[in-house]
């Protein structure tokens, strides 16, 4: 059911955005749009299916702590 909603939302976005891009012959923009939309679709599909995704907050925390360790040496 959730996946059906997801598909409906994403196809709605495609229908909303793509005709204008094709009409103006913005091919590069079309490719970038589909790349980003594909990425967003993958992430949201995984989230809907309940796959545990890595949190960007944890990654930033690790990097910041690593740099502080480099500077202060503690």
């Amino acid at each position, binding site marked *: 059911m959730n996946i059906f909603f997801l598909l409906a939302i994403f196809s709605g*976005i495609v229908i909303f955005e793509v005709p204008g891009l094709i009409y103006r012959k913005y091919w590069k*923009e079309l490719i970038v*749009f589909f790349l980003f939309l594909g*990425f*967003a*679709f993958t992430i949201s599909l995984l989230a809907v299916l309940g796959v545990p995704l890595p949190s960007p*907050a944890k990654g*930033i*925390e690790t990097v910041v702590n690593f740099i502080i360790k480099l500077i202060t040496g503690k």
Partner: protein
Amino acid sequence: MKLEGGQISPGQIIFLVMSFCLGPVLLKSIAVEAGHADWLAIMLGLAGGVLIAFIFTSLCIKFPGKTLVEFIEIIYGPLLGKLISLVYLFYFFLLPTLTLRLFGDFLTGLIFTQTPMVVIISLIVLICASAVRNGIEVIARCSQVLLPLTIIMLLLATIFSIPHMEFNRFMPIFEVPWAEFLRISLYSSTFPFGQSVAFLMIFAFIGIDSKKIKKARFSLILGLIGVGLLLILLVLRNRGILGATKVITVYPSYQALRIIDIGEVLTRLEIIVAINFLTMGFIAISLLYYNTALGLAQILKLRSYLPLVLPIGILMVCTSIIQFENIFEYQHFSGDIVPLFALPLQIGIPILSLIICKIRGLPKKE
């Protein structure tokens, strides 16, 4: 080729920066570790914020009519420039996800207790996406309408809460050691004042007239001072009403206005906090969302930023939901980690860029 034909006046910057900086902090507690000296920490943070604004607007004056992505590429060369711009854009992407998460936690926790968080966050992102698609002029005009209402409501709520205040709750000042106090001030100067570094992208829409840009810098600093004064008022009000319990509440403003009771007629004023947070948070999210979409389009050299708006919005919704499991993780991350992540972007890179400009003799005259 210009991606966006919009133009804003220097006077509109003052509205934009005030609503942008007020957005997330209307609900959050700022500098809470400083105890009774939190308003002093905010004052010192304001001084730091003005200094940050002074430094990064010097870059805007050097490169009139160019956004962050464009002039970083001129200063650092194409490859390194793109990398630094991507870090900035990631920061601009991260800040609204934090605000969105705050929205979600606040609304699902206190007002819409049965609604899933994803519904609320997606609806807010949808509204912001519509604002972003319409361009910077629309966001600026929205802030012109919404900011005066917010300030009036804030001041009225403060006046109504005076009967519930007690003076002895403001004492004793300075229970924290000096080093700790300075650290808290530094953190409060990176958030909320230092996040005005997002205006590196917005100053390009003022035009190439250097007199106008200098005026815009003045109004940016004026706006920051206004934000600082309102924040000090807010913090003092919450301290006066709640006293020592301010530290243990998650949303102190909400809790403080709940106590107001004027003749059993004016009660339950806490919804004012929700309204103010919704309107100002909308401007704050839209502005950063706009920066992300526009900057990404400029890095990829697209002819229009519109196709990027909705995919970025969906990524924002996903990120803000999977980022944290509960509000305490959120508070730890936004309080202790984000300021350290933001400090080099707000102070380090602008100063380094100014030095490199001096050495290389940029901007070159044609």
